[in-house]
């Protein structure tokens, strides 16, 4: 049974003073279902309706029509809110509080036990990389990255079953991104439903099981990601044209020997599928060892990038084609 159900959701906004400019449709009949333990990325261009969808799921906005339910309850049911975490895109936190006071305030609002308040907050602040000095500092003096970490820590209070993250790694340094991935992985393993609204496509592809592409208020496409279905990474290897290009069966044999798959020839590149970074390294080493004149290698444009730039979600991988007049 899905944890979150969205059916034919329609939401429009009044345009101009008093709605004299008509209405602009932000969501035009969105239907989605989110399973427990699933991490779903919502992507789409600016103005696609992503934030509106999140606003409706959080009960900030009232849909014009359609149905929203979380575990069969209304989205603004207080029992649901008690197990909900939210990291907003605009980090307008209470600037006059210290980081620790802010955490304790939200800990109390979340009805979590007062006896463990300080320890719970300290643990979460440590987890997101905010030390005691930072926790004691006023939020108004935080950098963008620190605000992002603090907002993530408050979103994690009480181990939420539903977590909504709006641009969660915007402004976060590489170490913070690694921490974010670890936290998300733990939440997902714990059965939390996580919905991420982000423009960081590579990160969405990496951490989400599924991605929903929203455009002009509609769900244009849905797809499982590498994290969800173990899609192979595709590597484009450019070969020198000054030497004869190896035949397809030879490239296939080299790739198979290195644990990869030869996917075809798209002049002037040979395309290989590999499982991970180590697989890519093994493949390149095998090609060089076999005397193949490799002059460049790069990962192929991601599936999400293709979605974003207008391709269909279900664009099939090109079928292998033999290199032109290849020599063995």
């Amino acid at each position, binding site marked *: 049974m899905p944890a979150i159900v969205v059916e034919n959701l329609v939401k429009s*906004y009044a345009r101009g003073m008093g709605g004299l400019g008509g209405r602009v449709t932000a969501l035009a009949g969105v239907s989605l279902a989110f399973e427990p333990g699933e991490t779903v990325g919502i992507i789409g261009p600016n103005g696609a309706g992503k934030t509106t969808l999140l606003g409706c799921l959080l009960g*900030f906005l009232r849909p014009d029509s359609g149905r929203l339910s979380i575990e069969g309850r209304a989205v603004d049911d207080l029992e649901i809110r008690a197990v909900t975490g*939210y990291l907003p895109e605009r980090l*307008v936190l209470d600037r*006059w509080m210290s980081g620790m006071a802010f955490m304790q305030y939200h800990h109390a609002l979340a009805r979590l036990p007062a006896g463990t308040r300080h320890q719970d907050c300290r643990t979460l602040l440590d987890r997101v990389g905010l030390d005691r000095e930072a926790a004691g500092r006023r939020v108004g003096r935080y950098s963008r990255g620190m605000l992002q970490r603090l907002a993530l820590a408050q979103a994690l209070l009480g181990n939420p079953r539903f977590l909504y993250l709006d641009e969660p790694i915007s402004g976060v340094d590489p170490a913070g991104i690694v921490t974010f991935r670890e936290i998300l992985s733990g939440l997902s393993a714990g059965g939390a439903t996580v919905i991420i609204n982000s423009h960081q496509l590579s990160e969405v592809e990496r951490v989400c099981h599924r991605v929903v592409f929203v455009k002009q208020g509609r769900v244009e496409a849905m797809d499982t990601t590498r994290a969800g279905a173990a899609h192979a990474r595709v590597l484009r290897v450019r070969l020198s044209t000054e030497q004869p290009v190896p035949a397809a069966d030879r490239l296939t044999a080299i790739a198979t020997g290195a644990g990869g798959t030869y996917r075809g020839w798209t002049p002037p590149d040979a395309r290989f599928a590999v499982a991970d970074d180590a697989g890519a390294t093994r493949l390149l080493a095998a090609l060089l060892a076999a005397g193949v004149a490799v002059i460049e290698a790069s990962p192929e444009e991601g599936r999400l990038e293709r979605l974003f730039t207008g391709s269909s979600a279900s664009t099939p991988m090109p079928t292998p084609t033999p290199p032109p007049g290849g020599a063995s």
Partner: protein
Amino acid sequence: MNPTLIAAFLRQRFTSPMRAGLLFLVTVFPLGAVAVTGTISPLAGIASPIALILAAGAIGQDVASGTLQLLLVRPVSRPSVLLNRWLACVLAAVGLTLAMLVLGTLALLLRHTHPDGLDLVRIVLESACSAAGSAAVMAMLSTLVGGLGDVGLLVAAVIVTQTFAGLATLEHWDWLARTCTEIQGVISPQLGWEWMVHGSPPSWFAITSWASTVTLALAAGIARLNRRELSYAAG
């Protein structure tokens, strides 16, 4: 009653330099007047401005900044946010008034003047009622507009009613004068407790009128806040 909401709201209000400065002005000057005039009456009217200072932007500022969204993700209902903030304003206004009355009484005792105990009780009760009324109206206005727009609405309402009241006096238009008095009663709901001092029966009409105004203001504020959309995408 949510002590977490009340404490956080009051802490935020009292750490705002502008509000602290205004509170200083509306409490210290009347206290000085008590010391100079030798009567406690200058402190009788401080609760309402204190409540207004604390309640200004109670909802609108958080809606405009976006902090209300983060608050409402927690298991806290919209009506409870408004009611707890209203209650916080009333408690703080009455508390500050009581503190000023204690200081005022001490100042009078130093002048060998003994304030009437019943009169002090009357002032406390009237202060509590005017604080509750002013905070309710301000909280309601705060749900209508963002930021500190509620102050603008209140000032505009006061100026308009005063202007029309002056016109009514000039032209002897009793109906307009009466209307302006009623509107002023709604903008600043107050309840007199003189009957307690004089030993006369209470005016049930005045009590009902004050209570209904406060209740209606809070109900209107809750209704508006419940319908309010909280997103910058909503404009």
